[in-house]
């Protein structure tokens, strides 16, 4: 098998040099570019976060001006959401989906190329505004990643128009990526792979792609309304012109809440792939996992205003959004219970991917608990816009989504490169990351409950101690990621050869392929029983 594939490999029309990447239509090369792009953005967004934490290390303004602080929080949020988590998941989808369903490549390879190459353009625009700000040529976006009108419209800096076009490009990129995922899954599955036989990662991405197609146009709509408000005299969000600033929030969160699940459903798929592998036991409740994912996706469209309890909705609206949000706890709980049941009475081993997956289950569940607390409207009036919320969504997005991405990279890296990564360094990376993430984010619950609002550059003295602890955690967390970078580079360059199966308990079509996987994954489709 190996020899045949190698021979075939030589006959690939694989361009060399820069052209291989610029004009690539190969799912693996594009997947790698997505992942490296996300990794680069992770360090840029992380550097901004470290500046924020350095400023918040103690009360008083030490390092940056309040105006620049707002630019830091805004760009940190935008970069981490749109530049790290989303592209990393698309990169994983690109690498894994064709291999997992027994296809040679993605269904729409040229569109795949375009959807990647829009991203550097989008983030070039966004980061250009930061560079200009540092050079003293104007302010970068400074209205928070949620860019509420009228702060972002009437009162937005000139660079807001850069931001708007950047978001447009990201949206086009995401929608094309999603179309590609759906087309691939619907058309290129191996004979015999019915929908209910698809690997769970494929399922979660399938559902995520529908969410993307449903809500990215809504985001594009809201930034277009901003654009015309700012430049063409409309008043969608300007009360003085008969518009409605609260409508902005409704439209934004109609995008924003499904967006939250776009950033977590693929993570569920990853954890559902890793836990059975290292438990040496099949995934518990496969079909209930699928139904739970679909339920979460459906509910995500009818809960958006729980982000807006304080805007002054009618009480009936508040009750509706509180109840609908509470319902999400049920399918999410089912998932957690399923993972634990998968581990129950297995034969567990604790390689780095499994460690990250277990930490995901522990810590994502923490984020789930605080999410349940936040949905209780009368209590949310106290939590809203405090560090309690910051703690909540960092538990979900860092120790949730980002941990799942790290787990996925360790899990599939041997398949991608043909080499095992350095297990010792991987474990070191895990323990440093896991401990420091908790030192960083856990105290935020306390300062939030004690009354510290989010997005403030300076704070009252009673919040000082926990902020200091969080900042220490942040720096350990940030610098620990350099180990991750080193482990990945080391593994790409060489190392102990990986077997085709890679892991003792591995299942799935990608583990039937040789390691490293051939350039065109399955040129003849395997038959799934």
């Amino acid at each position, binding site marked *: 098998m190996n020899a045949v594939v190698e021979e075939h490999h030589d006959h690939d029309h694989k361009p060399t040099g820069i052209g291989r990447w610029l004009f690539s239509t190969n799912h693996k090369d594009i997947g790698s570019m997505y992942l490296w792009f996300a990794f680069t953005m992770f360090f840029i967004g992380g550097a901004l976060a470290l500046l924020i934490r350095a400023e918040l290390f103690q009360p008083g303004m030490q390092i940056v001006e309040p105006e620049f602080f707002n630019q830091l929080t805004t760009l940190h949020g935008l970069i981490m959401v749109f530049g790290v988590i989303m592209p990393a998941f698309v990169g994983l989808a690109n690498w894994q989906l064709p291999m997992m369903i027994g296809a040679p490549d993605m269904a729409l390879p040229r569109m795949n190329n375009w959807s990647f190459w829009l991203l550097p353009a989008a983030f070039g625009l966004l980061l250009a505004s930061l560079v200009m700000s540092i050079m003293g040529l104007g302010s970068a976006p400074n209205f928070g990643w949620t860019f509420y009108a009228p702060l972002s419209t009437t009162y937005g800096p000139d660079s807001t128009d850069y931001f708007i076009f950047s978001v447009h490009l990201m949206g086009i990129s995401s929608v094309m990526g999603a179309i590609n995922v759906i087309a691939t899954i619907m058309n290129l599955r191996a004979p015999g792979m019915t929908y209910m036989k698809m690997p769970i990662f494929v399922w979660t991405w399938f559902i995520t792609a529908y969410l993307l197609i449903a809500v990215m146009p809504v985001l594009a709509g809201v930034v277009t309304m901003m654009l015309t408000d700012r430049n063409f005299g409309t008043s969608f969000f300007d009360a003085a012109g008969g518009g409605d600033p609260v409508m902005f929030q409704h439209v934004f969160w109609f995008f924003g809440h499904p967006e939250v699940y776009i950033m977590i459903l693929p993570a569920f798929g990853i954890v559902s792939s890793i836990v059975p592998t290292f438990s040496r036991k099949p995934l518990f409740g496969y079909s209930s996992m699928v139904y739970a994912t679909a339920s979460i996706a459906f509910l995500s469209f009818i809960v958006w205003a729980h982000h807006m309890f304080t805007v002054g909705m009618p009480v009936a609206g508040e009750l509706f959004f509180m109840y609908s949000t509470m319902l999400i706890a049920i399918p999410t709980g089912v998932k957690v219970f399923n993972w634990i049941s998968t581990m129950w009475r297995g034969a567990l081993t604790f390689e780095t991917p499994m460690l990250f997956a277990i930490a995901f289950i522990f810590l994502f569940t923490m984020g789930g608990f605080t999410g349940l607390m936040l949905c209780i409207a009368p209590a949310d*009036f106290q939590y809203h816009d405090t560090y309690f919320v910051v703690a909540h969504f960092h538990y979900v997005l860092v120790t949730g989504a980002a941990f799942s991405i790290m787990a996925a990279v360790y899990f599939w890296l041997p398949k991608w490169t043909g080499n095992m990564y350095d297990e010792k360094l991987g474990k070191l990376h895990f323990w440093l990351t896991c401990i420091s993430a908790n030192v960083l984010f856990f105290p935020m619950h306390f300062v939030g409950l004690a009354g510290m609002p989010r997005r403030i550059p300076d704070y009252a003295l009673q919040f000082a101690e926990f902020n200091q602890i969080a900042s220490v955690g942040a720096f350990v967390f940030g610098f620990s990621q350099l180990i991750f970078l080193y482990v990945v580079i080391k593994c790409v360059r060489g190392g102990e050869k990986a077997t085709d199966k890679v892991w003792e308990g591995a299942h799935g079509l990608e583990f039937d392929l040789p390691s490293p996987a051939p350039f065109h994954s399955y040129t003849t489709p395997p038959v799934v029983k």
Partner: protein
Amino acid sequence: MRAVTRPLGLVCLLLASSPTLAEYQLNLEPGVTITSQNAYDIHQIVMWICVVIGIVVYGVMTYSILTHTKARGHKPATFDDNLTVEILWTVIPVLILIGMAIPATSALLAMEDVSDSDMSIKVTGYQWKWHYDYVGEDVSFFSNMNTPMEQIKNLEAKGENYLLEVDNKIVVPVDQKIRFLFTSNDVIHAWWVPAFGVKKDAIPGYINESWARIDEPGIYRGQCAELCGANHGFMPIVVEAKSEEDYLAWLGEKKTAQAAAAESGNKVWTMDELMAHGETAYNTSCAACHQVGGEGLPNVFPGIKGSAIATGDVAKHIDVVVNGVAGTGMQAFGAQLNDADLAAIITYERNAWGNNAGDMVQPSEIKAAR
């Protein structure tokens, strides 16, 4: 939970020798209104339910991690389905959620019932200060943070209420149902006093409502809770709750003082008076953007020191300050300040920091320009 708290506990132990240990507030405060107490109660209920669920879930998981390992030679089972437990762990959470929803609903209905209030205060958010209007009482004023810039820039020691102190606090009576009306003059702000459990967005073009009946006299502090621009972190709220008589006495004093301030617009001021009053008023109303030294913030807020407006035509200068500049952060201060304040500020801006225009502006000129 253990995996979460262990590292934190370690750090806490390391810092336990610190003398400021008493500052570590871990939980929500119950506050002094029925709304905040309801919020506290429901918070406690839901949090402890989550803790119990967490102990069970994490306990099972930890047990599995410790015992069902390959290292211990555990042979993996092969089951991958069990309808009974799946039904159980769907139905039990539903029941728990219903148990949470019942007290949450009654607390929410109570906090949203603003009927039968005894008095109303209209709160307007501005970048970056609050304006309070005692409806029907002819008393209204701005409330600015008055923490000195030196403390923020670490040039002097920080005071006890660092960033949570204002020049004009609002005074309210205890044991009365106070209705707050919220709106904004520019961007969205949110008025939050944790001890009252009141957090409501102040939105341009909207009037939101909330209420509080304060149980105990005291001074209560809060902050703006919605990102509203550069100085979002510097627009605190201070409320003093007093007995009915003390409140009425304060209201009387405030009325007299406001009448006197209005009167000050009718007299002719000397240059020295204008400059002295101008410095104070400038530092309160203008320095947040244009800075105490008038230099502004490059590319964000223009400087006044040496600017064409402050050294050129007086009428243009008055127009900019009174009517604002459309499409920029420069507000129309004519709606916020009285004639004397505006005259003093403009005079000060024209003569401070080496601007030396030499002219002065009288309150009567402002009145004419309005």
